């Protein structure tokens, strides 16, 4: 599966109303650690069809970042059934991201 680009317009459909758990990657082009995390997320999106991976650019979507209390990136927020289940701030290696995503 590809990583889906999410904005305020499709956030509800793609994230809150998703029937699969969602991992939202809040990021920005100028953020070095975000660019390092990106290939890890791309790989996981291929390997984990049971999870939906979405990307949110905080420069374009600052309201989404504010609503979800994101003040540092990269920030991964896991949504299950439309609400936040857990989050991970900062770059982490793939093995730890896998643990964060869980079963």
């Amino acid at each position, binding site marked *: 599966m590809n990583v889906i680009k999410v904005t305020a317009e499709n956030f509800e459909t793609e994230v809150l109303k998703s029937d699969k758990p969602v991992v939202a990657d809040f990021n*920005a082009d*100028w*953020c*070095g*650690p975000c*660019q*390092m995390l990106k290939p890890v997320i791309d790989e996981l999106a291929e390997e984990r069809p049971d999870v939906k991976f979405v990307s949110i650019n*905080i*420069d374009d979507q*600052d309201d989404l*970042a*504010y609503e979800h*209390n*994101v*003040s*540092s*990136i990269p*920030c991964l927020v896991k949504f299950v059934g439309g609400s936040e289940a857990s*989050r991970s*701030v*900062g*770059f*982490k*290696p*793939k*093995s730890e991201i896998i643990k964060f995503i869980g079963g």
Partner: protein
Amino acid sequence: MYDIIVIGAGPAGLTAAIYARRASKTVLVLEAMTYGGQIINTPDIENYPAAPHISGLDFANRLYEQATGLGAEVVFERVTEIKDGTEKTVVTAENTYTAKAVIIATGSQNRKLGIEGERELVGRGVSYCATCDGAFFRNKKVAVMGGGNTALEDALYLADLAETVYLIHRRGEFRGDEATVNALKERQNIKFVLNSTVTKLIADKRLTAIEVTDKNTGAVTKLDVNGLFVAIGRTPENQPFEDLIKLDEAGYIAAGEDCITNVPGIFAAGDNRTKSLRQLVTAAADGAAAATAAVQYISR
């Protein structure tokens, strides 16, 4: 068995790998997070010789490609222990490796305030990097804790974005550059809170306020802020080696410019070593010195 194991894939570690590979030694680099080290947080490096502008990410990518292109092997595992002997054993959570020599280049971490709720609020208002996270606080109130150059530069950077910047410092005057201090004083939206420290974080899903205690009077003041930038220095990551390697009082590895530690065959390079200036260029220089010393040790 490898000739040299390098712990840490930051500028010091990867430079050591380059020098060791060019001396035809086999090299394994072990990295707990990602290659590049803390420089990946820097949007624009302006003080590296012959590279007047390069992003930290580009710098890290080029360094990584250079080291791996020369044949250094990089594995992403966290080192938990080094065992000394005629050959050195390096233990990670997943594996055990052996080498003739080891270079420790684990760098440093941001020093934490050590107050309740700090860890939980990272990314929800508490930050250690103004250039990384400042954009989230446009037209909001923020505080910077610290009195060194990083704190002063953070305050100046944030003053362009935020509505108000409280600069909180535990002393009555700043030890940072006088020019920067003067520039801060000219900013209308920077408020100085001196002889004080942050003693409490107040939050409701995100940081909403902090309490600041005046260490002379004991008076406690509540400041409504959405962001707190902690800039109280850095601390080395030498805990896994402290039983084996001699550290200085501040926890840095006691080694000179030759990067030689108290244990033969174990070398220290970069920000985790006792030194007066911790910069990209000094980290790279350490990598070269440590690799050269390690190569000499192997062929002794």
